[in-house]
Structures are given as C-alpha cells and as structure tokens.
C-alpha cells in the first residue's frame, strides 16, 4: 500500500469509500421500499389509498383518496344511494375548501349557499346517482375532508397531501 501511494497519488480513501458503499446500499433498500409503497398506494391511487366511506344512517357514500399530492388533480366521488324527490343538498366544510381549488363539479349544482362553517351545494337530483368533485389540493400536509348531506353531521375524512 505504501509503495502504491508513492507511485500513484490519487488521494484514495478506502475507509470513506466503504462507508459510501454502505450508504448506497441502505439507500437502495429505502428506495425499493418507497417504490413498493407507491405500488401499494401509499403515495396515492392504490390499495391503501382508495377509500369508500358511508356514515351510519346516511345515504351518502363518499369515495376519495387517503393520500394525495400537492397540485395534482383528484376526485371526490359522492354516491347518493337513496334520494328523495326534489333537491339534494351537500355540505362541504370551509376549512377543507380553503385547502383545495375546485376545478369542476359534475353535475353542476343548481346553486351554492354560503354559511359560516360550510358551503352547501344544491343539486337537482331526483334519482340516485353520482356527484363528482374534481379538485386540486393547494396546501401540502394533513387535512380533513368535511362533507355530509344537509341535516346530517359532517363526516371528517382524513387525507394527507404530499408536497
């Protein structure tokens, strides 16, 4: 080794290089875990992210993603299992609305009513069907989707938005 050092001066540091190799291999393992997690849906859209929630004694079924990504368009799907004649009123919490940008609502609501803690979207729905909210989260971090039909308590559904 001493002879080599005299012959070729490249500043070799094998002790540090061995540490780098260990860090590389640990990082590859972590990377593989992240990829596996993404495949399973921990980064959104997969087995562990797809959620369908029905509140007790409610006709509203909410489908959403548990994990979302900052500024990525996503979908909040509301299925109305049992609809009375006339209009359907869906309430969404102001705090949740403050964390998202609503891109499109299908079908478009007849009107929107403003309240202190929530907005009420009024739909002319006489038959069971789907209401789709297309939106983008505009703040990263944990948040809650606050949603419910009028005269029912708001459901609070946890969602995490990756930066």
């Amino acid at each position, binding site marked *: 080794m001493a002879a*080599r050092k005299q*012959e*070729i001066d*490249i*500043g*070799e*540091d*094998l002790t*540090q*290089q061995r540490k*780098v*190799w260990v*860090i*590389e291999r640990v*990082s*590859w393992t972590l*990377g593989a875990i992240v990829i596996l997690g993404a495949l399973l849906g921990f980064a959104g859209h997969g087995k562990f992210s797809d959620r369908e929630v029905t509140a007790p004694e409610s006709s509203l079924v909410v489908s959403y993603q548990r994990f979302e990504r900052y*500024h990525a368009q996503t979908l909040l799907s509301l299925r109305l299992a049992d609809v009375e004649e006339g209009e359907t009123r869906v309430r969404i919490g102001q705090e949740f609305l403050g964390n998202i940008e609503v891109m499109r609502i299908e079908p478009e609501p007849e009107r929107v009513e403003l309240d202190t803690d929530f907005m009420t979207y009024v739909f002319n729905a006489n038959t069971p069907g789907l209401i789709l909210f297309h939106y983008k989260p505009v703040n990263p971090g944990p948040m809650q989707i606050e949603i419910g039909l009028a005269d029912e308590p708001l459901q609070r559904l946890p969602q995490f938005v990756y*930066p």
Partner: protein
Amino acid sequence: MESVIRAAAVYFFLLVVFRVAGRRTLSEMTMFDFILLMIVSEAVQEALIGDDRSLTNSGIVILTLVGINIGLSMLKLNFVTAEKWLDGRPFIIVEHGKCLQERMDKARVDKDDVLEAARKSQGLERLDQIKYAVLERDGQISVIPEPSQP
C-alpha cells in the same frame, strides 16, 4: 419563495439520488443512460416549474440552481470532508494487471469496462499491460499502462 424552495428541493433530491446511485450511473452515455436522463429531465421539469410558466419564475429557478451549484463548489473548495462526501475520491480497481474484485463489484465495474477504457485511452490489448486502472470521481476509468519492456 415557493420557486426557490422547489428548485432547492429538486436540486438536493437529484444530488442525493444520483450520489447514492453510484458514480457509474451516468458516467458514460450508453443508450440506457440517455433514456434515463431524458425521462428524469422530463419528470423534473414539472416539479421545478409547477403551474407558473412565467419568465420570472424560470429566472428565479435558474438563479437558485446556479446559486446552489456555486455555493456547493465553494463548500467543496474550503472543506475537504465536504468534497469527499459530495464527489467521492478516486480509487484503484486494477493493480499490476490484477483486478481488485471486491472494489470492482461494489462499484459495479467489470473487467470488460476496464479493458474497454484501456483500449480507448491507451490502445492496450490485455489486462497484464495495465499498471493501474482508477475509477475516477466522475465514474470514468483512467488507465496507466505498465512501462513497456525493453
């Protein structure tokens, strides 16, 4: 502020990913490296710019990236330890015609890579004509030939 944070986050993320991927990952532009580079740059573009396609945003992003690059080069210049960890150090992989197999395996270099570098840079034909082969910081292999026999 968001543009600066985005650019810095992307820079350091790529720095860490390519550092731990090993120095051989993009050392020579093979077809697969070229494809990897194209896909990565396409994926990074959205993360860097986001929805803001203004000239101001692009300017801030470019200034941030160049600024970090200058900052890191100054850090490396003044602190040897930082340079060691950021760029790594060269190390010998072939010594007097003998492959140092453990090092080559860890660095994902094989005998063919060394012989290719020897042919290209020195016109050598065999391993025993190599005095030293060194894996450089940029992932290239440099070859020092054995002195020719009289």
